């Protein structure tokens, strides 16, 4: 399982209701269902992913979150997950507000644009960062709203969003002191557990 997903599953209570925004092929919801008896719903727009998730026996709704999530009632899920998709939506702040309306708790993961490699590429080479983790070039990337760990925490402060926990992942599985001390420099993926 993708590293950010294996990190966030421990924040999800067994038997709870989970909405996974951008659920992909459903591998995470399948894991939560089989290991934690979670009642999951996925949102997805990619046709092949939708079929794959249905074949796993998951509930998947074809819906573009950029066009709103108003059809989901207030506080209708225990946890709303947005994994590595915040940077790809048109209005990240609005999506966050909607997630917090729909879910009692939310989990957000995103690629940290403040990572030292990104800084090096932009600062020294003067080019937009491209890596194995973010393999797109600037003109064809679906990632249109990059942010850093600091940026995200500023947004949470401005919006009155409470950060219950923060976790960071580097390019290797090995947790090092560097992540904890300077997450904005060493985290490739930032993981937040938030609520109102």
């Amino acid at each position, binding site marked *: 399982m993708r590293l950010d997903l294996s990190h966030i599953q421990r924040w999800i209570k067994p038997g709870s*209701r989970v909405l996974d925004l951008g659920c992909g092929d459903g591998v995470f919801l399948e894991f939560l269902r089989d290991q934690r008896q979670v*009642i999951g*719903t996925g949102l997805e727009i990619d*046709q092949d992913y*939708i*079929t*794959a998730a*249905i*074949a796993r*026996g*998951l*509930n*998947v*709704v*074809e*819906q573009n979150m950029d066009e709103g999530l108003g*059809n*989901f*009632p207030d506080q*209708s899920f225990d946890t709303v997950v947005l994994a590595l998709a915040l940077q790809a939506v048109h209005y990240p702040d609005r999506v966050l507000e909607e997630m917090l309306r729909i879910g009692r708790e939310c989990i957000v993961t995103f690629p940290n644009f403040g990572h030292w490699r990104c800084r090096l590429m932009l600062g020294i080479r003067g080019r937009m960062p491209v890596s194995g983790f973010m393999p797109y070039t600037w003109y064809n990337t679906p990632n249109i709203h990059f942010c850093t760990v600091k940026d995200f925490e500023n947004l949470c402060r401005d919006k009155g969003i409470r950060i219950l926990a923060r976790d960071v992942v580097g390019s290797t599985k090995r947790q090092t002191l560097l992540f904890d001390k300077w997450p904005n420099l060493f985290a490739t993926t930032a993981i937040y557990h938030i609520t109102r």
Partner: protein
Amino acid sequence: MSAPTQSRSVGIVVPQVAHFDEPLDLTCGRQLPSYDLVYETYGELNAQRSNAVLICHALSGNHHAAGYHSADDKKPGWWDECIGPGKPIDTTRFFVVCLNNLGGCHGSTGPSSINPATGKPWGPSFPSIRTRDWVLSQARLADYLGIDCWAAVVGGSLGGMQAMRWSLEFPQRIRHCIVIAAALKLSAQNLAFNEVARQAIESDPDYASGHYQEQNTVPARGLALARMIGHITYLSDDAMANKFGRDLRSGSLGRGETANAEFQVQSYLRYQGSQFSGHFDANTYILMTRALDYFDLALEYDNDPVAAFRHARCSFLVISFSTDWRFAPERSQEIVNALLAAERPVTYAEIEANEGHDAFLMPIPRYLDVFSAYMLRVGENR
């Protein structure tokens, strides 16, 4: 090559008739003392009786959903694209039941049947039938076949409305509800089209106020016209443009042409109309359009579809088609949103398709993929 040799066909099928003597209390307040339901089955019912799938037909459908009635049948059943070995509703795994609904004209008791009380055809005096009456009669058929709980109840268009009604009327007897190109209720535009269709039939002198059978006439012109109107609404603008464009069948639009030109689309519609009027009963058409008009899923739940769906216990698959303007994707989204708000398990896909409402009968690759993937889940009892 004769059709039944195709490996993905259920082959030759034989319709069967179930007779019911227990009176059926109808929503309109009247009672049918006894009735017949004609049906077909494909595949085998397993030992646990857990693999039965009910197919509900749409406005002009019947019990012949798949396979062929004889070796020289040219066309298979109406949903052969989706029912058969290796198809979405895989008959190697499921026991499939499809019936002609009450009020129909393909063998089940309806307006063209003899009213035992008078010895004459029921005609226009046949009781008005609602979707919930169909569901009740289908439940009687399930009892007759020894099926306690359907693995899935499946339907497109008016069939989807029956499937939804099943989920509310018999929540403990349905595990999955598959609703394709349907709506919670008809829009005013939809009601209007149905009224024009009925007026077309009723204004045909041969309709004789519905007593055409006794007078040995058939309101063929009115019925053909009704079908033509319906047919236009089942196709999209694009589908008609692709199929016919402005192609002429005869004549020309050049100067000096005195005779009328005929467009391909004209002759196509006339052909569809005359084919239909040759084998469909006018009173049944009126009865079916009224059942469609009167369907309103949430009417008896304070007009709240969320409150209605809270009674359901099954999982739902909802499918819509991008160019369907008779039952547009927005109508399916209303179903999905009500299910989400009622916290019912729901899966939704909107299929890109040029074919309009008729797309639900077509072998569109993504449609078949989504349908097949969901039926895997139905088969695995998840």
